[in-house]
């Protein structure tokens, strides 16, 4: 075995089980990879090296004793928006600098209970608001395929770490595309589960009715393995659904004969990058070649997803971020009086994009504007959901591009928030509808930047998405390509 960091999670697990490799050497090589390359990539905000080696040693002991937990000895990284006991959790914001939680998010806890090796916490746009990770208050994360390009966001650190072999898998979170878009930009698999499939307890809230935690991995099988561990009802999250968790590995047959794949015409728009359209259409042709039935469909309210999202998510965020007041945790800038302390703490603690969204949301919820904005947005959201309900009467899965363009250069959209928001036009509808979506590598543009195919399933129909994605992956080589790191 030459380089353990090139293993997929599934491969590593098999080798660990056979004791051909040890968890300790796997953890050490991954830490070495981080040490060698994260200076250029900037994926990690915190590397928990000692913790990783301790977890790995414990895993080796457990494996020797015949323990067979699903994540035993697997080195994983966690987006810094998920609460981790004793490990600084900043959400990419100065306002939480130094904040060490006293409890662990349920999704992370489940991975810990399954035996994971904790590598550390991953960079992100501040409070998950952004599409490039440029809004992190701490550092720039670069795209491993081209360090002049952004990794996408907000889970940019989570995607870049996997692409650069600095984790076998990571957890990201997705509110409007924050797993799928960086997955596409970094050439890895990014799965946003259905809303309510994975507990949000400990996921620091941005848009409460939209936020979902999910895996970023090298393969669809790896994503299924992580989803298997983190999915399920949580008594601490009243919005997590109490529905049985299927065996996701059963979907990984490679057989999609007869699967009905819908192609929404609204997802092929003027202004999208030709390479992206070409790769997506080729991927759809590949699905057809594998025996799927391709059906042209319409999701007629797609164009409203963006304006609706930018009312609902900021409205929820404006309340969710009220707790950062410098009183109980995080940064406090004390001016000697209450209102002064509030203003200084929040004024200096939050970055400009966060402030922009707090203002948007505050405005949308204000008396006299509520009905015109928040109330109307909720009505349109119902129509967006209905679009998907009707589509899934006809098809089992929807195939579309994840993003209109590939990874853009740093600074390209920072002066124009609306242009930045447009990066998410193809991922927002599934978020608004609460249905699962996954980005799978499906090619490269002429500059060698990865392109993602988005597969969308019905609510709690992750199997459909995994089935299609896995079959596609088996038939193609895109996921085997790895970036050459400097």
């Amino acid at each position, binding site marked *: 075995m030459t380089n353990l960091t090139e293993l997929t999670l599934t491969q590593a697990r098999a080798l660990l089980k056979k004791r051909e490799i040890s968890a300790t050497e796997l953890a050490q090589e991954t830490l070495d990879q981080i040490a060698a390359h994260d200076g250029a990539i900037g994926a990690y905000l915190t590397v928990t090296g000692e913790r990783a080696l301790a977890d790995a040693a414990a895993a080796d002991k457990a494996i020797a004793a015949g323990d067979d937990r699903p994540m035993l000895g697997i080195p994983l990284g966690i987006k810094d928006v998920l609460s981790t006991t004793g490990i600084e959790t900043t959400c990419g914001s100065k306002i939480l600098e130094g904040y060490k939680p006293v409890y662990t998010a349920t999704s992370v806890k489940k991975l810990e209970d399954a035996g994971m090796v904790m590598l550390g916490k991953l960079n992100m746009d501040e409070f998950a608001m952004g599409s490039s990770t440029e809004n992190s208050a701490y550092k720039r994360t670069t795209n491993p395929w081209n360090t002049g390009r952004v990794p996408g966001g907000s889970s940019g650190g989570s995607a870049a770490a996997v692409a650069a072999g600095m984790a076998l898998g990571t957890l990201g979170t997705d509110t409007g595309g924050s797993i799928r878009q960086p997955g596409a930009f970094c050439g890895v698999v990014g799965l946003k589960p259905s809303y309510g499939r994975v507990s*949000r*307890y400990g996921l620091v*809230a941005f848009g409460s009715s939209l936020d979902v935690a999910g895996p970023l991995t090298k393969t669809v099988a790896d994503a299924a393995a992580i989803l298997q561990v983190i999915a399920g009802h949580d008594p601490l999250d009243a919005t997590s659904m109490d529905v049985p968790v299927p065996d996701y590995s059963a979907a990984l047959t490679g057989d999609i004969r007869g699967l009905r794949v819908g192609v929404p015409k609204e997802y092929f728009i003027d202004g999208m990058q030709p390479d992206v359209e070409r790769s997506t259409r080729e991927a759809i042709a590949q699905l057809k070649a594998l025996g799927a039935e391709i059906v042209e469909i319409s999701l007629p309210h797609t164009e409203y997803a963006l304006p609706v999202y930018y009312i609902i998510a900021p409205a*929820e965020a404006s309340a969710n971020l009220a707790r950062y007041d410098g009183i109980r*945790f995080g940064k406090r800038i004390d001016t000697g009086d209450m209102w002064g302390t509030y203003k200084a703490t929040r004024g200096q603690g939050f970055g400009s994009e966060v402030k922009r969204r707090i203002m948007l949301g505050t405005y949308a*919820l204000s008396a006299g504007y509520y009905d015109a904005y928040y109330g109307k947005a909720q009505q349109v959201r119902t129509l967006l959901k209905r679009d998907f309900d009707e589509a899934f009467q006809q098809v089992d899965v929807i195939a579309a591009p994840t993003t209109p363009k590939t990874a853009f250069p740093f600074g390209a959209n920072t002066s124009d928030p609306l242009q930045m928001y447009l990066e998410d036009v193809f991922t927002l509808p599934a978020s608004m509808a609460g249905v699962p979506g996954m980005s799978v590598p499906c090619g490269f543009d002429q500059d060698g930047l990865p392109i993602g195919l988005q597969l969308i399933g019905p609510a709690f129909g992750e199997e459909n998405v995994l089935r299609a994605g896995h079959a596609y992956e088996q038939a193609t080589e895109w996921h085997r390509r790895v970036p050459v790191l400097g």
Partner: protein
Amino acid sequence: MAHSEWKTIVGLEIHAELLTETKMFSACPVVDSVTAPPNTAVDPVSLGLPGTLPVINKRALEMAMQVGLALNCEIPPVNQFARKSYFYPDLPKGYQISQYDRPLAVNGYVDIDLSDGSTQRIRIRRAHLEEDTGKSMHTGDGSLIDYNRAGVPLLEIVTEPDIHSAEAAEVYARQLRAILVYLGVNDGDMSKGVMRIEPNISVMHKDDTGYRTRTEVKNLNSIRSLFRSIEYETARHIKAWESGEGVRQATMGWDEAKQRTVVQRYKESAEEYRYFPEPDLPIVEVSREWVAEIRATLPELPIAKAERFMNELGLSRYDAGVLVAERAVAEYFEQGLTTGVNAKSLANWMLGQLFSLFNARNITREDIATTKISATQFAGLVKLVDGGTINKATGVTVLEEMYDTGADAQAIVDAKGLAQISDTSAVEAAVEQMLAENPAWLTEYLGGKDKLFGPMMGKVMGILKGQGNPAVVKEVMAKMLNARKV
């Protein structure tokens, strides 16, 4: 001031904490927020730590429904929580989870009996659930916050502006308090802040066609201060309108020492709480079966109990009302009745001698069960008086000793030889002694000075050391005096 031209208009908001074991939205225990050490009953949820989520306490819903039903409210088939946003350090999340446009109970009423003999219906607009805030303590060198109370279930009960006097407000508040205590959902201790009353006060001139500006009084910690503040505020409003100065909408505080209201802040515009539905919680669906189940758990409430005392025991409306006002008093009375004592005698002795003793010893009636005299012991005393073993005056003496020692009435009577003298020959001897000692009285009495009978009887009682049976003494003495006429 032409008071008769003005009418008092008051609506009451009562906040009552519910006596659940755990908080409104988490498993954090509820403690006595006055006596428990600060910040010892807190958890990540009640501190609003990043990533935490609320989960509805079903017991709190049930208690709130009990109150709603006891107040003759409708329980709508759905209710919903909402976020009410405002900044204050004792509000951990920067928003309070409350109910807004879909409260748990609506359109109820309470009938109250006023001292002029009239009965008035006070309509209940709504009752809704929310979470309490922490407590701020302002010291010389800063403010301290105790979050023990943060997240404790709080029921807000709002009347229509149907209250037209301080007396009616007091009667309503007492009755509502009694209902809460009977239901076992609140212990009614206003000094601890577990029940807080806020009157909204305005006045209406006889020529008015609409409401005038109102003021709200906060932080009242007794029903007495509720009464006083309404009297004070009403007079202030009338004076302000008559002088042409007018009333500004304001939140007032009550200065207990000066017995007056003080302006806390003026409200120039409608308050902006940016309510929106709480995305972390599902809508609460209340089936009719559930409502029926809750209705079946309701105990006999004060009004029904008072009716029963009147109809079955022949008590007066006033006596019955006083007995049921405190649940502990009613229970004491009913426990006494189990001894077979005459109900009217028991009621008379409780309302008369026992409560006089409580007043003298500074005991509140609700503490009746904590005194040394058990209900059955007290009934035993009443039976001794009713049966003629001791007279009323001796009974009072025995009662005091029972209060101090906890001994049975019979034991005290036996030990001290207090049984009253009903033996005719002993009484005859005493009368003879009295006559021998006061020969002038006999002459005057026989001469027609009938009013000497009283002093003569007093002497006889004195000779009998107060233990003479008054009826026997009266009869024997009258007979002996009559025998000397002619």
